[in-house]
């Protein structure tokens, strides 16, 4: 629910409740006052009748004037108290039921007991109340409409800087070297928010750059000693006077350095992907790229008599070009490494997904740990267990999903982008 809607809803309900309560109490109090007025008039009439009876000893002739009637009825006993009541009485002149206020009291006129009814029409009073209520109601309606319109227009204008800021932040990318510029606003709260956002984002950007720098430095610092060791070993193996034992030692060191530098490269690659340093995307012709990779791997497969079946559809996807290369390399390397001689590899590229299936003598991989770093099915194998995490990571940043399935000694990985 939008803030406006929520605000308007609460505002509307509150206003209506307040106005209704006010109208009801207004009605009750006006009615109370007006009826009090009528009662005063009736009391005056009572006093006049009592004064007349005291002076003359008889009841006055009942004169029916407009809106007022007096009637007498003989009574058996004298009513002690006077009584007020409201009721509808048939008005013969107007030929309709009309509300009347009636005062009843007892009187002793020349020894005879009477009940006196003085009736006064409330029609005028009701009219007054009605018109007052009508005016109140119209006023309420006008105020509601006005406040709705004002709120809508005013709030929209007031919140504009907020939406501008949102739009700016939405377009913000950490790895693009751009600082945020918000449109100027005079509202203190928004100025404050923009300041905080500017500060936070520039801080994040700075941290990101530092991290990136660290990655690059780490790469440099690690690669140089590795390069030295490898170059020394390259020189050492040239020595023709190496004994068989020494030669074996050098070989082992050489292989270990290979592993170490590969490991370092894989870890750096993972860090770089995590740091979003491969954010630049292009439209990649996946069919062409897959064909190129298949061509590159063909020799290896032929060498191991691995048969390959390929079915490719024309597909273009938006992703980083380097990552696309690495992804395919890793998928194909895996399918080759965990295969056996006379085995097979099946590559299927459709509009929605890329599926690579390979035969293998290895059992099903642990689905929960498969993509975690350094996951290896068997210890001491020649690979570092980072290949699948790199694949997973690349799929993550490219918005793809990766699925693993295992049937009939066939391992299958499916990358889908829809």
């Amino acid at each position: 629910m939008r803030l406006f809607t929520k605000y308007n809803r609460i505002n509307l309900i509150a206003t209506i409740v307040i106005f209704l309560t006010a109208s009801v109490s207004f009605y009750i109090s006006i009615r109370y006052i007006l009826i009090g007025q009528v009662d005063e008039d009736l009391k005056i009439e009572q006093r006049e009748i009592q004064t007349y009876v005291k002076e003359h000893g008889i009841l006055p002739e009942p004169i029916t004037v407009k809106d007022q009637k007096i009637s007498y009825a003989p009574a058996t006993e004298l009513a002690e108290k006077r009584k007020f009541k409201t009721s509808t009485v048939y008005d013969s002149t107007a030929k309709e039921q009309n509300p009347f206020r009636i005062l009843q009291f007892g009187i002793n006129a020349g020894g005879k007991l009477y009940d006196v009814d003085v009736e006064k029409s409330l029609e005028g009073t009701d009219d007054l109340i009605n018109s007052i209520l009508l005016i109140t109601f119209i006023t309420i309606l006008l105020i509601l409409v006005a406040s709705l319109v004002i709120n809508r227009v005013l709030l929209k204008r007031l919140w504009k800087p907020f939406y501008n800021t949102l739009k700016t932040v939405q377009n913000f990318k950490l790895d693009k070297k751009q600082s945020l510029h918000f449109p100027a606003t005079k509202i203190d709260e928004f100025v404050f928010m923009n300041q905080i956002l500017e500060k936070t984002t520039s801080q994040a950007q700075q941290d990101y750059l530092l991290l990136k720098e660290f990655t690059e430095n780490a790469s440099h610092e690690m690669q140089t000693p590795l390069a030295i060791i490898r170059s020394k070993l390259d020189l050492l193996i040239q020595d023709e006077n190496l004994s068989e034992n020494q030669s074996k030692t050098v070989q082992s060191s050489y292989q270990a350095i290979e592993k170490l530098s590969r490991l370092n490269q894989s870890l750096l690659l993972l860090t770089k992907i995590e740091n979003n340093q491969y954010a630049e995307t292009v439209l990649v012709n996946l069919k062409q790229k897959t064909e190129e990779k298949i061509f590159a791997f063909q020799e290896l497969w032929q060498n191991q008599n691995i048969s390959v079946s390929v079915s490719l559809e024309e597909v273009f996807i938006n992703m980083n070009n380097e990552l696309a290369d690495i992804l395919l390399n890793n998928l194909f390397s895996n399918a080759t490494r965990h295969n056996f001689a006379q085995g097979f590899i099946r590559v299927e590229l459709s509009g929605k997904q890329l599926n690579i299936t390979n035969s293998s003598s290895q059992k099903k991989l642990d689905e929960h740990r498969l993509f975690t770093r350094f996951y290896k099915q068997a210890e001491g194998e020649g690979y570092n267990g980072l290949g699948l995490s790199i694949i997973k990571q690349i799929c993550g940043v490219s918005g793809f999903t990766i699925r693993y399935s295992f049937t009939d000694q066939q391992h299958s990985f499916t990358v889908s982008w829809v």
Partner: protein
Amino acid sequence: MKVLVIEDEKELSDSICTYLANEQFVCERALDFHSAIEKISLYDYACIILDVNLPGGSGLDVLNELKSGNKMDGVLIISARNSLDDKVFALKAGADDYLTKPFYLPELSARVAAIIRRKSFEGKNQVSFNELNLDLTEKTVRINDKLVDLTRKEYELLIYFISNKNRVITKNAIAEHLWGDNMDLADNYDFIYTHIKNLRKKLIQAGCTDYIKSIYGMGYKFSV
């Protein structure tokens, strides 16, 4: 032919010079930015091996200095940065090639040789070696003037060997040279054997001396 190695890591610089010294290269060294600038302004080199991170300045500035001085020296950048952007940037700035650390010395040697060939042969781009004659433009090999039919990989392999005569080259180095470093196949280098075997067979059949020796467990050597 003179080669200048601009690399602040003395040990690495030593290794490079030792390896290249046997290839009829005279190696000179610069360990920092300023001595590098001084050396390139005084002398001409057939090839300059240039590290990007140098004390006192960037290797790319050395490159700019070279290019603004209209020097014809070939430049091979060696750097720990392996992103495509860095490579493209260096090549656009005028470098002839880009090699990521850690590298194999035979690879470095082959690249230096290639740069020098490109710079100096000018048209008659040929490499001759005893009975072997390689045409680098047409990518053909002749033995005693007779054409030998080699696959692309076998041809590349032969040039690689010739650039590293009398050197033990490991299988790892050969694999990376032929397939690049993306193919993460760890210790499985059996497939190289097939290529070497075929190359040897074709050369011997064409009447060539069997130069390629297998060094047990290590790799191969093109011994003359």
